């Protein structure tokens, strides 16, 4: 039992690096696997280069205990891969290999993730030319050989106005045997840009980390900085953030259900949801002038207050929108021809979901209760949250139902928060960040849990910033859910996960 070697903390804590024990790799590995066996999941896993090698940090979440565990070790050029024993780490290890040229020996599926040059001065482990930017998607794809097996490649340019991603299907007739997804086309290097920060531009980069999760990412970022600065954020600011977060969830879930019905050709819900999504976005605009919530959240608080007139206005609008939304959504969940397209399609089993470390809507649809609002609440606004939604079937219908019921829960939460809005200020400037420290923050964005981690250097500047978007965990589940399905059901499966490309690519 190596539990004493772990640092256990609530998120929001600022941990001085000096207090972090550095384990030798064998102990690190043993402790990590032991924790995962004890119902922890890997929330974040990242490296930070130092003079003597690569410092590795693993952040594990114990959801029902509401705390996090931190493990720290140092590796040189290679280390024995943990993926064979802990599948949730597969992408994290690939990411590390691409960023720092560290080879996880024995990784079963070692390929690039985002197609960029190594961040440090080292050899690319795939031998790609360091002078040129690698070509996105340039890797060996899994291939099925044989008579009547054919390969279908979709993207990165798509017919709709969506983000770029490449999907490689191995098909037998109409049946998909394997799907491999290659992303990275939108890699901007946000984590790199944040080093040396917080810069004046940082918050704007975070707002665009995943454009549809602006509130989520800026909230997580602000929480990290506030933790590092030991800042006491005012309750009213938390409440406004929570309102904005729920509005973002509403807009995206309503739009997502509209998208699901568009993909199966069910017109009424598609049209109504398209319109309603706009109405929810307009509510965000009432709050801060931006339909996507840009400019609202800043480290230290929020920039815009709600006066009583605005609270009443928002409440009135929500009172109109709620029955309309219920009507539009229930129209499709009551329609047999729609349910025939949703039920039993794209199933992810609970075991697979657990093993892959899924989060958010995809996890909740597989019966896993994973909701940062419940387990890791931040501030007073979220402590009232007690209605996590779960479904157990793990299919398209379950994911649709999670979103449907989250919409209803969000309405309730919004009503409560708007009614009991704490009084007080909304913003106070941040002090300087604690030097040589680490802080983690979790925020339940509409797709799932966003985890931001920051490490500061001796001057109190950010020396490593790590973002884990829910899409990072969940894309693998989409690939898995397509096995044995009809290729014509891919769009509706894809939409049911509704993952972010740029949130993954960063």
């Amino acid at each position, binding site marked *: 039992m190596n539990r004493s070697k772990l640092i256990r903390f609530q998120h929001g804590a600022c941990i001085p690096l000096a207090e972090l024990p550095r384990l030798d790799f064998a102990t690190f590995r043993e402790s990590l696997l032991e924790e995962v066996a004890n119902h922890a999941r890997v929330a974040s896993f990242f490296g930070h280069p130092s003079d003597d090698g690569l410092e590795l940090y693993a952040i594990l979440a114990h959801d029902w205990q509401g705390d996090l565990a931190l493990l720290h070790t140092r590796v040189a050029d290679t280390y024995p891969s943990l993926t064979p024993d802990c599948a949730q780490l597969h992408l994290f290890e690939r990411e590390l290999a691409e960023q720092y040229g560290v080879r996880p020996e024995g990784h079963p599926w070692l390929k690039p993730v985002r197609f960029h040059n190594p961040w440090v001065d080292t050899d690319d482990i795939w031998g790609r030319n360091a002078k040129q930017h690698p070509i996105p998607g340039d890797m060996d794809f899994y291939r099925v050989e044989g008579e009547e097996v054919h390969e279908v*490649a979709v993207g990165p340019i798509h017919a709709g106005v969506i983000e770029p991603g490449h999907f490689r299907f191995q098909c037998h007739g109409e049946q998909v045997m394997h799907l491999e997804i290659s992303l990275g086309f939108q890699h901007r290097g946000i984590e790199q840009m944040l080093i040396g920060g917080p810069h004046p531009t940082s918050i704007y980069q975070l707002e665009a980390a995943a454009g549809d999760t602006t509130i989520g990412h800026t909230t997580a970022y602000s929480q990290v900085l506030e933790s590092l600065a030991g800042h006491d954020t005012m309750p009213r600011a938390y409440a406004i953030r929570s309102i904005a977060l729920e509005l973002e969830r509403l807009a995206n879930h309503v739009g997502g259900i509209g998208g699901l019905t568009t993909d199966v050709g069910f017109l009424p819900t598609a049209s109504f949801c398209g319109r309603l999504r706009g109405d929810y976005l307009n509510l965000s605009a009432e709050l801060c002038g931006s339909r996507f919530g840009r400019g609202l959240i800043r480290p230290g608080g929020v920039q815009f207050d709600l006066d009583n007139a605005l609270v009443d206005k928002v409440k009135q609008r929500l009172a109109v929108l709620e029955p309309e939304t219920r009507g539009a959504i229930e129209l499709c969940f009551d329609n047999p021809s729609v349910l025939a397209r949703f039920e039993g399609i794209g199933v992810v089993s609970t075991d697979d979901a657990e093993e892959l470390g899924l989060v958010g809507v995809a996890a909740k649809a597989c019966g896993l209760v994973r909701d940062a609002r419940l387990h890791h609440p931040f501030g007073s606004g979220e402590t009232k949250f007690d209605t996590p939604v779960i479904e157990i079937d793990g299919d398209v219908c379950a994911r649709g139902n999670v979103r449907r019921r989250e919409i209803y829960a969000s309405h309730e939460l919004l009503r409560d928060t708007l009614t009991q809005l704490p009084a007080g200020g909304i913003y106070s400037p941040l002090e300087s960040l604690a030097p040589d420290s680490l802080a983690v923050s979790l925020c339940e964005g509409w797709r799932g849990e966003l985890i931001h981690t920051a490490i500061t250097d001796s001057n109190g500047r950010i020396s490593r910033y790590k973002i884990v978007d829910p899409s990072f965990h969940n894309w693998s589940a989409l690939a898995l859910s397509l096995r044995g399905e009809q290729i014509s059901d891919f769009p509706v499966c894809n939409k049911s996960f509704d993952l972010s490309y740029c949130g993954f690519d960063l």
Partner: protein
Amino acid sequence: MIGSLALSLTIHLALLLLFAPLLQGVITKTKALFAGRVGAPLLQPYYDLARLMRKGFVFSRTTTWVFQAGPVVGLAVPLLASLLIPFGGLAAPISFEGDFILFVYLFALSRFFTATAALDTGSSFEGMGAAREVTFSCLAEPTMLFTLLVLARLSGGLSLNTLFGKHLLDAWHSEAGTSLGLILVCLFVVLLVENSRIPFDDPNTHLELTMIHEVMVLDHSGPAFGMILYGASLKMMVLGAIVVRLALPWQTGWWLSDALLFMAGLIAMAVFIGVIESIMARLRLPRVPQMLIGTSLLSIFALVLVLR
């Protein structure tokens, strides 16, 4: 004789060429009203055709003449087929014994060219679409033939003019009415399948992986694409003519009122299609062949009923 043939040809072609795109407009408008939108103007399909005709061609270097033949055949076939089919009370200008077999296989010819044009591009999507289209239409073909056989049995003739002659009205009232009801349903399903409408295909989708017909014409552009769209609306009117004639077997004998009744019937049919598309989701792809086998069985049953 020549004069009446010329008149009949003119009326037939004028009706077909001018009226056909309106049906698409009616469907779109109906769907828009169901969705609570104003929707595109009724005449939008005409504007679209005019716009496409003004554009240039873009041909991939990997394609051959087969690719260019696809749209031409796709437009010529419904034109030829329309001459064999009576438009409501208006008799077909060209008629001979057994023309209904030509009618069925003209569409098979057009499908052959559309599918080969799709394969000619070498795109995996278009290959997939071609495979689906060919599979589904070879299942739709028996339905079409059996329904026409029912009509042939009832009329005692073998030309489409006789098949859809004046006796239909009496036949509805006789005990053959059940058979006619069955084949009306079958023909309507074939109409939806052949014109790639919901619940079998979604003409508005942008998702290549789910498309059947639309994916085969992805690489066509400009006037060639215009010809495909125009061909598609002609096809809908030609196949719709069968359904409408069967559903509204009345005729006055005066060409103008017959033509008006026919057009009203077509518009009602377009509205009906629009309603179906508004209240139903698409079927899962594996369900489509099952449905078509079902209609084949229905039409065989209808044939058995009239053969008793």
